[in-house]
């Protein structure tokens, strides 16, 4: 065992002096973004800590600090005595220019050390358009931009996050890529690097060949990369070389190292259901986008919306037991001082225990504000949001039908009918919301003008319902975005509409949407083209990204900074076109640049599901319906529980009044609406004999497979309480 007390180190960089830092901060907007001092931030003794990570989040502070992944991994590493993790966010343009004119490097927030002084830079890549920010940060931090340029003393640059499912466009800049969930693998990477001596800082031997700078590490970069490649879920791009055909098509990858595996599958955290990381969550000193505590109640999603990369690639579905979620939420609220906590997941209304967690949190900490991402279209969601914020503000109720026509919603597997949309909107209006916000996409595979105009029809129908309830106060806001085909979804082969097609659809839709009380917001499509091009891109895009950055591309995710012309020129100078990457239908027999990587769902399933899409056939949500054989258990070794035996009901305690049966069957099942739920909330229903186990928690999990008899039992219980059984 290595003795405690950190790294024997030749090179111990000092923090930048306050007197230097303050002159820069005095010149910039929102200096608090770069100053640190936040509650729950951790400042460790640099020289006493063995391995030093810097989490570089390539977007502005307000976005990065809202990211739950950062809050989690920051704690996972800093909880280890011999590990240290600091933070850095993308500089706004004024801060960048202040740093450059002063000749000062970009510093870590905690101890104000330049990025180049760390052992590992962990990049969180959550959106294609942040790639230019990565270059800004590396450049300002004194780190070589490309893997080929980096010095032996430079940190390893390792990326994770949702867009690294296809990391090929960024491969030039990344020493390694972590696929999947980070909780376990950041520790494994740390241990591996320490064991081979990556953190040792030794004086450069006089006259040593290739020794650039005054120090080097205990092991070469090449050896460190070989060690990383042996860790499951870690991909080292430089160990592979792509082949292209004369016509420009990608033809496959050659492995250059024996250490490089043929395929790499994303990691799944080993203890999600039982252990909550990220309790002492960072609390910012200035307002951020999601300025609240967060408890992740569920990971994964089984709904199977075919456009949704997160839903397809985060399986298996894992739910936190209510006692785990409640205890963690309480601890997080206490540790942060926040009064608001978000119950987060990809679809929180699908979380089996959402109601009991909400009820119990309100009981234990009155005054706590709960929020949940509510985009699911069903009455349960309205009822839930209503129950979570009783008497709260009735601003806008938001949900996402995604497509206007039934046929197209079937194509994308957004299993919701016109009637359900209407019922949901009606309930929202009845419960006091006067404004409803609807999210739609245009340009979905197989879309016709008829489908586009159906967006206007359903929006007008919802508006009319609102007007009957609220008169002239009723508002419907339709938010329209452009479909972006995402890799590792059933739509990965489908090209995006051309700009002309999109423009025609938007114009037609705008004309059809003209009505008082109805507004349509539309986001310019050019950034979606770039998003699609990068998303489905290959390694030839690395030089394009570099050129665009050199031409001034900064903060491209922000409208006020995004300039598509820079990117067009950068593509053209490399002899490429964004349209070829974004708009082409890729033949299914063609090799894909990302096919050596995966997150569990099998390519065969994606192809099968694509065929069903073309036939406008739904694929069942396997949480409630039969298993769709997506391949996750085989690829990941994680079993999953499907609802093959049919819908389920839960015995649960609602409020302090007693017990109620709560039906948690599949969304869209009418038994989930109105009567049953209302009865469960309001009624004092006794548990049947033999089921009255002790509160609090053994009861919550007492799930019953509700075969016919069970549901009949439910109905009679509700009847006994004076409720109605169906809506």
């Amino acid at each position, binding site marked *: 065992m290595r003795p405690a007390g950190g790294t024997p180190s030749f090179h111990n960089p000092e923090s930048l002096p306050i*007197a230097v830092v303050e002159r820069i901060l*005095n010149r*910039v907007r929102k*200096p*608090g973004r770069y100053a640190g001092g936040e509650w729950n931030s951790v400042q460790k003794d640099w020289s006493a800590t063995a391995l030093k990570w810097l989490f570089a989040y390539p977007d502005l502070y307000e976005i990065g600090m809202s990211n739950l992944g950062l809050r989690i991994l920051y704690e996972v590493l800093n909880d280890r005595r011999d590990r240290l993790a600091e933070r850095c966010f993308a500089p706004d343009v004024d801060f960048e220019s202040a740093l450059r004119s002063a000749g000062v490097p970009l510093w870590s927030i905690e101890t104000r050390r330049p990025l180049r002084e760390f052992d590992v830079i962990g990049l969180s890549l959550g959106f294609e358009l942040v790639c230019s920010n990565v270059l800004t940060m590396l450049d300002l931090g004194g780190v070589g931009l490309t893997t080929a340029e980096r010095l032996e003393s430079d940190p390893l640059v390792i990326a994770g996050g949702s867009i690294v499912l296809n990391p090929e466009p960024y491969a030039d800049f990344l020493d390694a890529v972590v696929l999947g969930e980070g909780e376990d693998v950041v520790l494994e990477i740390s241990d591996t690097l320490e064991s081979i001596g990556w953190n040792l800082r030794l004086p450069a031997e006089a006259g040593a060949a290739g020794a650039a700078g005054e120090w080097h590490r205990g092991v070469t970069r090449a050896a460190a990369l070989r060690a990383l490649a042996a860790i499951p879920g870690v991909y080292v791009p430089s160990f592979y070389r792509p082949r292209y055909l004369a016509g420009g098509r990608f033809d496959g990858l050659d492995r250059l190292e024996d250490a490089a595996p043929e395929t790499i599958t994303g990691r799944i955290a080993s203890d999600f259901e039982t252990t909550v990381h990220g309790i002492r969550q960072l609390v910012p000193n*200035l*307002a951020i986008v999601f300025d609240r505590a967060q408890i992740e109640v569920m990971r994964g999603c089984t709904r199977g919306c075919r456009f949704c990369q997160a839903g397809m690639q985060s399986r298996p579905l894992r739910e936190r037991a209510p006692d785990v979620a409640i205890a963690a939420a309480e601890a997080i609220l206490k540790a942060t001082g926040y009064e608001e906590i978000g119950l987060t997941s990809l679809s929180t209304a699908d979380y089996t225990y959402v109601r009991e967690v909400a009820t119990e949190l309100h009981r234990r900490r009155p005054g706590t504000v709960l929020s949940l991402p509510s985009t699911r279209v069903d009455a349960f969601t309205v009822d839930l949001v209503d129950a979570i914020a009783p008497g709260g503000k009735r601003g806008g109720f938001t949900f996402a039908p995604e497509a206007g026509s039934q046929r197209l919603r079937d194509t994308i597997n957004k299993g919701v009918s016109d009637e359900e949309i209407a019922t949901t909107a009606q309930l929202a209006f009845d419960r006091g919301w006067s404004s409803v916000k609807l999210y739609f996409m245009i340009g979905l595979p197989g879309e016709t003008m008829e489908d586009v105009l159906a967006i206007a029809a359903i929006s007008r129908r919802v508006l009319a319902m609102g007007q009957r309830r609220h008169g002239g106060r009723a508002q419907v806001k339709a938010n329209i975005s452009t479909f972006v085909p995402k890799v590792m979804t059933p739509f990965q082969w489908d090209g995006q509409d051309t700009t002309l097609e999109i423009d025609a659809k938007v114009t037609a839709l705008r004309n059809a949407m003209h009505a008082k009380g109805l507004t349509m917001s539309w986001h310019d499509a050019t950034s979606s083209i770039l998003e699609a091009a990068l998303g489905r891109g290959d390694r030839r895009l690395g030089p394009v990204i570099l050129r665009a950055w050199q031409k001034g591309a900064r903060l491209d995710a922000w409208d006020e900074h995004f300039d598509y012309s820079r990117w067009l020129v950068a593509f053209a100078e490399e002899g490429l076109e964004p349209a070829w990457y974004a708009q082409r239908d890729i033949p299914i027999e063609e090799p894909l640049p990302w096919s050596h990587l995966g997150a569990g769902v099998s390519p065969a399933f994606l192809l099968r599901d694509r065929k069903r899409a073309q036939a406008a056939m739904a694929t069942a949500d396997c949480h409630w319906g039969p298993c769709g054989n997506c391949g996750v258990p085989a690829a990941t070794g994680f079993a999953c529980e499907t609802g093959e035996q049919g819908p389920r009901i839960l015995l649960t305690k609602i409020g302090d009044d007693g017990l109620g049966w709560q039906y948690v069957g599949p969304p869209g099942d009418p038994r989930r609406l109105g009567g049953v739920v209302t009865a469960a909330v309001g009624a004092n229903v006794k548990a049947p004999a033999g089921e009255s186990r002790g509160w609090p928690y053994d009861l919550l999990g007492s799930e019953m497979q509700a075969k016919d008899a069970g549901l009949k039992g439910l109905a009679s219980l509700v009847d006994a309480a004076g409720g109605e059984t169906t809506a």
Partner: protein
Amino acid sequence: MSEIRQRWRLVFARGEDARYLSHLDAVHSWERAFRRGEIPVATSEGFNPRPKLVFAAPLQLGVLAEHELADVYLSEKLTAPDLRERLMVGLPRGYTVVDLYDVWVNAPAIAPQLAAADYRMTLLNVEQSRLDGAVARLLAADELTRERRKEAKTIRYDLRPLIFELRARAADPDAVPPGAVPAEVAGLWMRLRHSQSGGSGRAEEVVAALAEDLGLSATISIGDGEDSESTGPTSPATESAGRPPIEIVRPTRERLWLAEELGTSLSGGRAG
């Protein structure tokens, strides 16, 4: 509204770690600190009840402080050591409680009692000898007309009566950035009127007036880059060409003064 059982006056300091909070950020930060420390703060009336915490004077983003004042109203009584302990649990890095004392619940509100505020700072790109001259001229003037922008309007006002005391002095060595020419760094200390009824002087306006006297420009804003445009001299400049603007570093509000603490000595005070 919860019942008020106790009112505490907090004297606190703000250091480097909390320096870049705006007033609103600071309010939110303190509210979270009270929840973390489980301090039973009374809440205000209304649809959206807020904890009853009243800062005597908002502190500008970027300004350090050594003796700020705030009143906090509690719904349950606490002893001084208990409250101090709970504040220490919850307050973020950068804030320290210097002192706290029990105030009669129905005593007058704190903000109208303010009379003055002391500031000190280091100025870069100006020699102390030149600054001495400018200070003397400024103090000798009967009137000092300045313009202040308020939304679209420009308001003319007389800065002179808002300055009780003003002194140039040697710079704080800690505040001098590496590479700065030591001869071109000076310290500045001032006591300004800070009064709800009689007006409040702004330290950066005093610096701008001094710079103008010297024919220099000044980066007048303290900390908050939102309006940190350099203001050129409004009078004909003879010297500013080629000279870097005066820059304020480590601006510190040393102390807020209540009228009763200062007595009547302020009214015509002109320190020399």
